[in-house]
């Protein structure tokens, strides 16, 4: 049992760290009452997922995935370029999501005067 945990921490440490971040973000998303805090927790979860994918792109002894001029046929180990591509899209989608979410929060505040979840549920009745 303990050497399974030791092996997990030595080979797959980044998976554990990212799982902790996602757990913190999900807990805050479900438990906090203020809508802005929920939005920040969502941002934490998205950033943790981006970190997970970029950590998966590492290779032992690898370098940046840009082919140096003159070394086209050399035997160089490159880091994996695929998670970087996917995460560029994910970062821009994060920004778009945050923008629309804060626009909605501004409209909610203009209409109801509060951003706490329980007061909003009362004022909607």
């Amino acid at each position, binding site marked *: 049992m303990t050497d399974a945990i030791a092996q997990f921490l030595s080979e797959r440490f980044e998976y554990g760290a990212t799982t902790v971040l996602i757990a913190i973000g999900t807990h805050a998303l479900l438990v906090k009452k203020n809508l802005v805090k929920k939005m920040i927790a969502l941002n934490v979860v998205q950033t943790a997922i981006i970190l997970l994918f970029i950590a998966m792109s590492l290779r032992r002894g690898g370098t940046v995935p*840009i082919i140096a001029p003159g070394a086209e046929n050399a035997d160089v180990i490159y880091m994996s370029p695929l998670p970087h591509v996917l995460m560029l899209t994910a970062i*821009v989608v994060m*920004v*778009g999501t945050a*923008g629309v979410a804060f626009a909605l929060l*501004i409209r909610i505040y*203009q209409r109801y*005067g509060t951003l706490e979840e329980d007061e909003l549920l009362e004022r909607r009745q």
Partner: protein
Amino acid sequence: MISRFDSVVVRTAAKILVPFIQVFALYVVFHGAKSPGGGFQGGAMLAASIILTRFTAAPEISLRYLPDLWALRLGGVGVLIYAVVGLLPLLWGAPFLDYGALPIPGVHANEVRALGIEAVEVGVALAVAGIMVSIFDDLAPAGRRERPSGR
């Protein structure tokens, strides 16, 4: 948030830095094929330079720099560039977004694809920069539109 910053140091530093940030952003966009960078990174830096002027300079100056609705139009132009460059190969019978089928005279097929990649990166940079500045302009009215009524 869009108002003249109080400190002379901050205003002067921003005034000096903004042109350098923009030149570096253009460098990052156009050298996306040879060095780290590309459309998204350069577009975010362009948006950062314009948002820096929005933060530090007076509204008359920063709105003259990029007027009120032009950021959204810039974003739309970026998406339009990407769509047009993608639809052009259809005129020559090739699938959508297949840049290698454009018969530019005297240029080898894989260099035509490199030119297609450059055009698409410019479109993506304009789209990302325009939309980021537009979201900032919408979220921070600073009294030019109605304030939250706060019941």
